[in-house]
């Protein structure tokens, strides 16, 4: 197995186990590259990549841009705030215009679920989904699994609990698919109002008592409360959320075993996790950020190698 089974990375749903294995092995090599004195390789010097962000993003955009530059690709950036989208241009028109400038690959974040899939059917370029609404965020799930593999040796057989706003989270869905594909067990925990009704159909355990969930797991992935996506109140107050679903050092120390703490960022310190937890040895939050660049380099490299000249 030396190449990906897909031409686009639209979601973890479309990948198989060997794809993930290949991405991780390639990411291992790129992780070594980005720790060299000169952190750049010339592989993609004849590839142009457009980063289209129709929704705000800081770290994902930076991480993608850095990954692209470390591979020597030419990069153009676009964010909808300053664009013709505001003037009423359609998604296909916007992207076709950009592609007519000879762009080979598109990294897109869009507020609408399925935007990447839609685009992949209508334009001639490799598409990487950098988050589509509350649907999928495949590179985040890949870097999360990669970080678990790095810390614990393997993802297979591990127990992972995803805590927080599952309902609005694309990170949660992609993580569930990725972890299950690699043979991990997944549980979700959070206020009942923020857990989708039929999530158990995905083979996921549900536990609304955080202490029980943490005692079960090897890894806890703490999601951010996405206030910007909530049109109504899903819980009475942030204070109450923190009391029931926030992780602090006392709770962590009182568990039967030492678990690993993850967070996709940005952290609301003092809400879903306290500062001493975020900065503790059990936390791999900053490893996730570094691995994000290596994993994205691997994804871009592997997809780019399928673009024929």
């Amino acid at each position, binding site marked *: 197995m*030396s190449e990906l089974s897909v031409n686009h990375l639209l979601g973890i749903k479309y990948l198989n186990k060997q794809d993930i294995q290949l991405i991780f092995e390639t990411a291992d090599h790129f992780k070594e590259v980005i720790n060299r004195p000169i952190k750049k390789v010339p592989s993609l010097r004849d590839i142009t990549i457009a980063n289209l962000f129709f929704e705000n993003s800081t770290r994902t955009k930076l991480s993608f841009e850095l990954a692209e530059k470390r591979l020597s690709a030419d990069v153009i950036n676009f964010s909808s705030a300053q664009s013709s989208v505001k003037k009423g241009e359609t998604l296909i028109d916007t992207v076709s215009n950009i592609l007519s400038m000879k762009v080979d690959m598109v990294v897109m974040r869009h507020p609408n679920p399925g935007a990447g899939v839609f685009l992949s059917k209508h334009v001639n370029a490799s598409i990487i989904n950098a988050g589509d609404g509350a649907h999928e965020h495949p590179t985040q799930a890949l870097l999360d699994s990669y970080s678990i593999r790095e810390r614990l040796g393997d993802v297979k057989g591990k127990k992972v609990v995803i805590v927080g706003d599952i309902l609005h989270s694309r990170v949660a869905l992609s993580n569930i698919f990725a972890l299950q594909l690699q043979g991990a067990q997944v549980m979700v925990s959070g206020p009942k109002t923020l857990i989708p009704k039929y999530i158990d159909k995905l083979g996921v355990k549900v536990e609304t008592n955080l202490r029980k969930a943490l005692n079960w797991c090897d890894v806890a992935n703490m999601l951010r409360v996405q206030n910007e996506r909530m049109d109504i109140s899903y819980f009475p107050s942030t204070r109450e959320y923190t009391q029931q679903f926030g992780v602090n050092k006392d709770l962590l120390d009182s568990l039967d075993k030492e678990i690993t703490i993850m967070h996709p960022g940005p952290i609301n310190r003092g809400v879903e996790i306290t500062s001493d937890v975020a900065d503790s040895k059990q936390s791999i939050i900053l490893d996730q950020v570094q691995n994000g660049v290596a994993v994205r380099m691997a994804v871009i490299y592997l997809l780019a190698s399928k673009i024929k000249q």
Partner: protein
Amino acid sequence: MSQKVLLNAKEVNIILHRLACQLIENHNDFSNTVLIGLQPRGVFLADRLAKILTEDYKVKNIKLGHLDITFYRDDFRRGEKTLRANTTKINFIVEDKNIVFVDDVLYTGRSIRAALTAIQSFGRPNEIELLTLIDRRFSRHLPIQPNYRGRQVDVINNEKVKVNWKEHDNEDSVYLIEK
């Protein structure tokens, strides 16, 4: 598919010792020299040379690295297959060092061209030399020649030179294989 033995285990052993002696002649105690085996197949030769230098010629503190050139190759997207990388293992800075690239077969010279670019990521070496076990004559695409060669061979284009190593392929030998 027919194959012919170019070198047997005994001949390989004699050549390796000769190459080791030539290295000592030019690099004395190896205090400022590093051996870099090129992935994937050059690393076996580099490891073996380091072993001979250490055990048979009592050279101490040989610095040895493995360099993967996959991401520096000039044929990315030009072949059918995705290029798979190998591990790079260089845990020292090569700034001002004398480097000896070690590879099993020198053919077009393109791998060496890639290695010359790749090594720059680890600093600015003082000088770079090239050692190859087999030098295929009349097949170069680039102006690259070895400083140390085990055996020079004339091979036509539909033939392939395969170097086997005891550690990996159960015997030390060099075959000429007709495709």
